[in-house]
């Protein structure tokens, strides 16, 4: 929280230095995010994939693992949902949706769990690198599928897949964007919360994350829970992709590199891995993004300022030791003024 406040203040200073009115700009940002029903619809809709993927990243963090590749798992989820979405026909709408969502979830889980999970558990390969590499592989795989000549390429000039059968689309609740997808996000947060704090599996997963040595001594298999955590994490990111494509794009296409998987990491960090915190953080960053567009239109302040703010927030979250260090530095300065620095001062 403190991190965001500091970041927002720094953003205001940057804007002011460049000759913009920071108050007006931030005002436009807030209005753009929540001011109208359209804005609210976009903000809530944008928060859904962030929340789902953010829950995934948080689950991995709980087990002491850094899933930096949620983006790739997200796209694998999209790919599988779309494939199921236009290949299967004749299913009742609700069942079709369900099949797509489950397929996306499982695919994301396998993508995150199998290779990075096993490589980490049995070969010691760092999951930061492997999940990141798997993420790029997924993105190129998706591009290959829809490029001209690719197996999922829809006839026509654009690099895109055919559309998902309309029956499987999620229902719009508040135009233009908010769909029943929002229930998936809330539901997933509840399930993750319940699973983390009320099941033996969640308990062991947390134990492995909090102290793998003690977990091992207590008879918990650390490798098994490593694979499991990365798999669950991938499942949620895959679910994010599946739900999002059923709600909005309805087909696999590029052009807009969404980056939900990356922002999801920021969301999880800011929420300190609590499932309900993830919902709030997702809303915050989604608002930043949709509000940023309005800010650019109203005050001419580029929306990319919101990325600057995000970067600063992450920096301050990581560098939390800055606070005690600043206090210590201030005390030392005061102490030094009050008395001559003693010989013991060298202790770093």
């Amino acid at each position, binding site marked *: 929280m403190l991190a965001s406040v500091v970041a927002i203040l720094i953003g205001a200073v940057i804007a002011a230095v460049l000759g913009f009115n920071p108050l007006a700009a931030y005002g436009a940002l807030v209005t753009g995010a929540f001011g109208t029903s359209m804005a609210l619809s976009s903000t809530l809709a944008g928060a859904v994939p962030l929340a789902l993927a953010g829950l995934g990243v948080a689950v991995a963090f709980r087990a002491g693992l850094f899933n930096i590749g949620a983006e790739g798992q997200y796209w694998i989820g999209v790919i599988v949902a779309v494939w199921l979405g236009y290949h299967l026909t004749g299913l009742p709408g609700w069942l079709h949706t369900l099949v797509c969502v489950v397929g996306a979830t499982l695919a994301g889980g396998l993508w995150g769990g199998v290779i990075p999970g096993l490589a980490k558990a049995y070969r010691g390969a760092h999951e930061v690198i492997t999940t990141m590499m798997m993420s790029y592989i997924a993105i190129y795989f998706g591009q290959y599928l829809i490029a001209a000549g690719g197996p999922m390429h829809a006839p026509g000039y654009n690099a895109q897949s055919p559309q998902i059968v309309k029956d499987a689309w999620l229902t719009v609740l508040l135009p233009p964007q908010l769909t029943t997808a929002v229930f998936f996000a809330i539901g997933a947060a509840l399930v993750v919360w319940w699973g983390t704090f009320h099941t033996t599996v969640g308990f*062991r997963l947390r134990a492995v994350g*909090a102290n793998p040595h*003690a977990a091992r001594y207590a008879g918990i298999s650390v490798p098994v829970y490593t694979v499991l955590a990365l798999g669950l994490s991938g499942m949620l990111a895959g679910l994010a992709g599946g739900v999002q494509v059923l709600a909005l794009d309805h087909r696999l296409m590029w052009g807009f590199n969404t980056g939900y998987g990356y922002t999801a990491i920021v969301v999880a960090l800011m929420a300190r891995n609590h499932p309900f915190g993830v919902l709030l953080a997702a809303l915050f960053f989604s608002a930043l993004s949709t509000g940023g567009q309005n800010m650019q239109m109203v005050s001419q302040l580029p929306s990319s300022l919101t990325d600057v703010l995000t970067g600063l927030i992450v920096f301050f979250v990581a560098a939390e030791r800055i606070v005690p260090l600043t206090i210590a530095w201030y005390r030392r300065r005061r102490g030094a003024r009050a008395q001559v620095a003693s010989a013991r001062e060298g202790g770093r």
Partner: protein
Amino acid sequence: MASFLEVIDVRKYFPGVKANDGVNLDVRAGEVHAILGENGAGKSTLMKLISGLYQPDGGEIRLEGRRVQFDSPRDAIRAGIGMVHQHFMLIPALSVADNIVLGDEPGGIRYDRREAVRRVRALSEKYRLSVDPEARVARLSVGLQQRVEILKVLYRRARLLILDEPTAVLTPQEAEELFEVVRHLKAQGIPILFISHKLDEVRAIADRVTVMRAGRTVDTLPTADASPQELANLMVGREVVLRVEKPEQRAGDVVLSVENLSVSDADRRPRVRGVSLAVRAGEILGIAGVDGNGQTELVDAIAGLIPVSGGRITFLGEDVTALPPGERTHRGIAYVPQDRQRDGLVLDFTLVENTMLRDVAHPPFSRRGLLQHRAARAHTEKLLEAFDVRPRDPDRKAGDLSGGNQQKVILAREVSREPSLLIAVQPTRGLDVGAIEGIHRQLLRLRQAGKAILLVSLELDEILSLSDRIAVMHHGQVVDIVPGDTATREQIGLLMTGTRSSESEVAQPSNR
């Protein structure tokens, strides 16, 4: 002879621990001076103070009569203090020569590798420490790595050589070679400070010896005049053993039996070599020994945490050698690990969660995979009450508790599972007297209740006051098993050095 290094009334405190509390030392030019003391007596802290890794909280250090203050290892090196750490400070990925010259490399901007190799070769010939300067350190045996450490120190023109537990990791042959080196260095006029907890090697190599106990130096005397018995007594202290009232108890059936068990570490070095022992219901079997003689590996193997390389473990009449640790837990083996903060508890978890840690898959903690918070909390409350844990608040994080209360939580958890066998490793390490007494009472209560208890401790007092039988380990083997009520401190102390009780005098150097 003139004093080379003097340590006068030095103190170093860490939160809750007086690691050094009044240490006096006087190393003279040209002598081999040993510091003898049990684990935790404060030897390593003293060495870190002398070598500049720590700064003292009181007292002073003098070098050739002048007071010195080291703010960093760099200062100490510059003053001529050469420290060979117990855990080698080497970089395995680099060559021998690279490691030795690091920090004072030959050459200008360019690193003159050939000159470094030449200098190292010359140095190793001068001090008869042969080692290939171009070999990668990762490929060297431990004995050779130690040579590299010594060369590193000599390269910096050390005028005092400190060896911190140098034989702890060596084979007997390597240790003998090291002693040769030490004698040779002494002949070249370099004073040597030799830290050890092994009586025999101190007597073999040192001119004078200073004994430390509980953070203080007790006495300094010439080795020639000191009998092993006298040194052992100084080392372990002469206070009256707090003999706990131990009710008569007839040992029951064999609960655990270990036959010819062998365990190797990750580097395939044998740590436990053919150990056989049995623990019966209603008895406490104490395992005594100097730290690092295979006790931890033995009990870890019994608990299933590390694989065995040979032998059999039978528990309640069934062979459990191949079972996973969780299954052994479930069958009734409880374990109180040595490092309670690292292995025993999850410090960020509440007491309820820590109580659940081992048996979370079983009632009352869970039913069909679902946690039973209320039942777990009630259970924890009961345990906190029964074991007098303070604060009696199940929602506290384990990290907020004092060491004694943390240990009570672990013990409560393990004992409440109604195990048939309790393994306790150093259960009272670092605790205050009151807490120690409480833990001891609990162990005796379990004994009374007919449980089998395997107690590993480095504290002789603890072993002597609690054990029905005492197995003494040395170099991965059980030297002897003696009855607890007739055992004396002196007898156990000698066994710990690898000497059978029938032999009255230490005849040969330790065979480690």
